[in-house]
């Protein structure tokens, strides 16, 4: 009985998030609560409770490993939930403008749930459904400021482009299913070693399609065209979520797929990731140079940052996997603080001046010194200037890439970082050197102020004292490094792992048993995830 509880306990945070979404949507119908504007604070607090529950849940892999709750999923959940909390706090001052705040928070929670499922997926099916859940909620969120035509247009653009990519992703999954016979990561990895000859071509084709689908989600270069327009049109708080949590979700799924599903050898996918990384860094940074809108500048800088993270992903092969996963997670964690801060600043500026052009920042330090400081920290962290989090993170990413044998990519990254420094410094110059055209203080509402303070402090603290956050990355790395070995060892009889799985030694591989028990015969047996032998998968679900 303890087995049973331990196996399913990690699901509780996920269920709680669903309950939270529904509760928030219901509470919104109570006029007193709506007037008090507490839903955002409530959601943020509940997100932190979910985070605490998730951090204390045991590791397990229920349902024969369809979901994997391990250090990896836990570390990524921290990224998603912290982002959710900060974005919810910042959204409190937007409630009146957007309307429907209950639905707004409910959709944010459900989107986060989708991302968490991506991080915890043990196969392409759970990954796909998590991806769709997170993206689908984002469509509605992007179009939430529906009085503005740009917002609805951005939503339509995102919807169509994302539906096309998800169809391509699915076609890729179907090819992989055809070639490998399964879409569960451990079974795929096992089958991969037997692939040879012409089948490889089909494998590469499917792989390219699937990686393309992920590249859309993380906005890496050939698939980045949606990002600037959507970031610009969506409400700034949604953009903050989209550019950090959603991107982190894409990386969470991508790394699961590449490292678990493809067995940790970059031989099959290395070239694709290298191309994506190089293109993203070059295109993102060069196009960012000519931007005049703050949101578009951040969008292109986000594309370039995705490129930097892909450098580490490209180096994730063989022994370097752990370091790459750790670096990726660490960077995404700090990036959540930094970039959310950036978009919240853009929101404050747009609110105060009605324009999101970079020149609206002129002389910010005379008008609002605190805001100017937050802007400085954000920009320097994005640019990777030493005392701040971005520097440590980028160093870690490039070190992981270098160790993984991607020296050329690291050089491209270093060179483009210098270009990037130019445009970040140009913005900083507007903030600190140029004279303001108008001396009034920038009004900052309290919730956005709190959220900005959290982001700035986070960026500073991670930069000055990175050790505990690097440990978070190591936890993720352990989660992903331990899984393949253990599942390979256990696969014949219990891939459902969970160190305390009941011995299911009576089971035999399906192929060895001509007279398979058909459904009628095994119908009576209870099927509780890990107590069940793997071969039941083959026999029970035969058609």
């Amino acid at each position, binding site marked *: 009985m303890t087995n049973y509880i331990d196996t399913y306990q990690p699901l509780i945070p996920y269920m709680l998030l669903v309950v939270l979404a529904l509760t928030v949507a219901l509470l919104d119908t109570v006029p007193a609560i709506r007037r008090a504007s507490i839903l955002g604070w409530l959601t943020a607090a509940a997100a932190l409770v979910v985070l605490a529950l998730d951090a204390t849940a045991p590791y397990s892999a229920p349902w024969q490993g369809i979901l994997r709750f391990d250090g990896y999923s836990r570390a990524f959940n921290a990224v998603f939930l912290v982002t959710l909390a900060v974005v919810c706090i910042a959204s409190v001052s937007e409630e*009146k403008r957007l309307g429907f705040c209950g639905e707004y928070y409910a959709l944010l929670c*459900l989107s986060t749930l989708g991302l968490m499922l991506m991080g915890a997926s043990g196969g392409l*099916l759970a990954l796909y459904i998590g991806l769709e859940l997170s993206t689908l909620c984002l469509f509605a969120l992007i179009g939430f400021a529906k009085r503005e035509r740009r917002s609805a247009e951005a939503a339509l653009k995102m919807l169509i482009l994302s539906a096309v990519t998800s169809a391509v992703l699915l076609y890729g999954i179907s090819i992989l299913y055809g070639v490998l016979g399964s879409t569960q990561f451990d079974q795929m990895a096992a089958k991969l070693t037997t692939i040879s000859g012409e089948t490889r*071509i089909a494998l590469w084709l499917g792989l390219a399609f699937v990686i393309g689908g992920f590249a859309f989600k993380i906005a890496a270069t050939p698939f980045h065209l949606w990002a600037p327009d959507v970031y610009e049109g969506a409400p700034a708080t949604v953009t903050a979520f989209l550019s950090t949590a959603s991107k982190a979700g894409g990386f969470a799924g991508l790394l699961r797929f590449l490292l678990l599903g493809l067995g940790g050898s970059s031989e099959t996918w290395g070239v694709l990731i290298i191309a994506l990384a190089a293109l993203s860094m070059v295109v993102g940074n060069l196009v960012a140079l000519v931007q005049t809108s703050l949101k578009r500048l951040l969008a292109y800088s986000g594309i370039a940052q995705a490129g930097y993270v892909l450098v580490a992903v490209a180096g994730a092969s063989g022994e370097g996997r752990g370091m790459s996963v750790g670096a990726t997670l660490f960077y995404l964690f700090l990036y959540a603080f930094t970039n959310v801060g950036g978009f919240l600043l853009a929101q404050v500026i747009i609110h105060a001046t009605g324009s999101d052009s970079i020149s609206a920042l002129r002389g910010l330090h005379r008008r609002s010194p605190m805001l100017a400081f937050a802007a400085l920290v954000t920009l320097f962290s994005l640019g990777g200037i030493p005392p701040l989090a971005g520097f440590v993170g980028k160093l870690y990413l490039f070190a992981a890439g270098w160790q993984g044998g991607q020296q050329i990519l690291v050089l491209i990254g270093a060179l483009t970082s210098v270009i990037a420094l130019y445009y970040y410094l140009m913005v900083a110059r507007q903030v600190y050197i140029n004279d303001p055209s108008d001396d009034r203080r920038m009004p900052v509402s309290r919730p956005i102020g709190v959220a900005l303070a959290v982001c700035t402090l986070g960026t500073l603290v991670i930069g000055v004292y990175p050790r505990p956050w690097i440990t978070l990355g190591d936890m993720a790395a352990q989660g992903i490094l331990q899984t393949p070995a253990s599942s390979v060892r256990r696969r014949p009889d219990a891939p459902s792992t969970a160190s305390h799985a009941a011995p299911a030694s009576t089971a035999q591989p399906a192929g060895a048993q001509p007279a398979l028990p058909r459904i009628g015969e095994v119908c009576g047996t209870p099927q509780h995830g890990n107590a069940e032998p793997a071969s039941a998968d083959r026999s029970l679900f035969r058609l």
Partner: protein
Amino acid sequence: MNTLPVQIAFYSLAALTLISAAYVVRARSIIHAGFWLLPCFVGVAGLFATLQAHFFFVAQLLIYAGAILVLILFALMLTRDAMSLHVPLKSHLGIWAGLISAGLGISASLVLARQSWSVTTAHPAGPARQAEALGEALIGLYAVPFEVASLLLLSALIGAVVLAKVERAPAPEPPPLADTLPEPEETRKEPVGVE
């Protein structure tokens, strides 16, 4: 078992599907494109039947030919000039893109075709057994994805209602310090049905 009727069914359904799909893309009028979707969906449903996926034969008819097509036609009716409009090609760039993707798609299907698929000897079970296996899988092994699919539909519903709902008067521009001022009572109607 005589395979000839199955083969005849396959080829005629394949022709139906591909020809109507080509007409969806070729049609000059949006409405015609919408109507060509119907034979295409029905053709795919028929192909499911030749694959002995009985449940999906019905589901395809109900969901695609029934629900999705109707929703798409609704969207058409809601946009202006739908009846008279003809759909212009994007540009010659689009045609190049089309040619490239055609090349890619055809090479993809060739790769898949040349792959040596081991011959299956097993027969799929009857409709009842298949539905049973599917149901068992849905509430057993795939319980979480199944529940998540329901959340997906829920969020689509919420999103569609929020986006499509009419707001009469545009709300006044919020004061800069929204939380320090008395807030105007915002009037909100109850949602009146989906779309």
